[in-house]
């Protein structure tokens, strides 16, 4: 497996033999197709980080993330979400599917 990008909490790998990707979430390693990775990107980029600083919008500052057709469930805090956004963004740039490094709003 080759490392595509690594952030503080997460690592994105490419497995050439299995023709898929793996995301190491710390607690567990999740196998993903590119479609599932695109779905992760859509979900992560849709999260409004501003709401984490407004107790009316997000009281506890957590996000529930369901991945790979509800196979995996993660509860992430503000720092982890910020790090995941960065990892996804840089991952797509490293894979050559994104032309820029600025955040894409969903």
């Amino acid at each position, binding site marked *: 497996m*080759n490392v595509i990008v690594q952030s503080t909490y997460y690592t994105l790998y*490419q497995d*050439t033999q299995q*023709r*898929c*990707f793996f995301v190491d979430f710390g607690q567990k390693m999740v196998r993903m*197709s*590119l*479609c599932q990775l*695109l*779905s992760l*990107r*859509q979900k992560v980029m849709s999260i409004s980080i501003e709401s984490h600083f407004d107790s009316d919008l997000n009281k506890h500052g957590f996000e529930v993330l369901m991945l790979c057709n509800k196979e995996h469930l993660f509860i992430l805090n503000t720092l982890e979400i910020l790090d995941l956004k960065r990892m996804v963004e840089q991952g*797509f740039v490293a*894979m*050559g*599917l*994104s*032309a*820029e490094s600025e955040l*894409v709003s*969903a």
Partner: protein
Amino acid sequence: MKDIARQSMSIKVESMDLLNAQIKMEAHASATYLAMASWCEQNGFFTSAKFFFKQTEEEREHMMKIFNFLVDTGGSPVSPEVTDINHDYSSIVDVFESTLEHEVAVTKSIHNIVKKAREIGDIATERFLDWFVMEQVEEENTIRDILDMIEITGTEGVGLQMIDNQVAKWID
């Protein structure tokens, strides 16, 4: 190292995001024209209602064209959530003026995606949108012609009835 990502997807994710936003815009336009058809039916403009029923179908076809392009290029098309549809219009002139505003907004959005695709070197998306650029020229022209016809006919007396009858010219 094999480039699995590139083998699975042939457009940039920035284009995909903009095309998903365009899918939503086309779906919103389709729903708006359906609301206009409803208004026309309720206010006795039956030919104009037929025109808007046809427009509704066309906008949905545009949406599906983009949706299928994202499928074909290995992207991730998102089924849009459509909300905030206006059902209130003050007159038939208001309906057609709102239609032109809508079409101009769609044109601007398409042009914006073309510019972005060109900037990031996404030739497939740029070429795909060629059809939409010309389609928008036609759409805007149709509504402008109808508004010109309304201005010439006038809305006094039997004018409104004549306007509705003449809209038939633009249905086929």
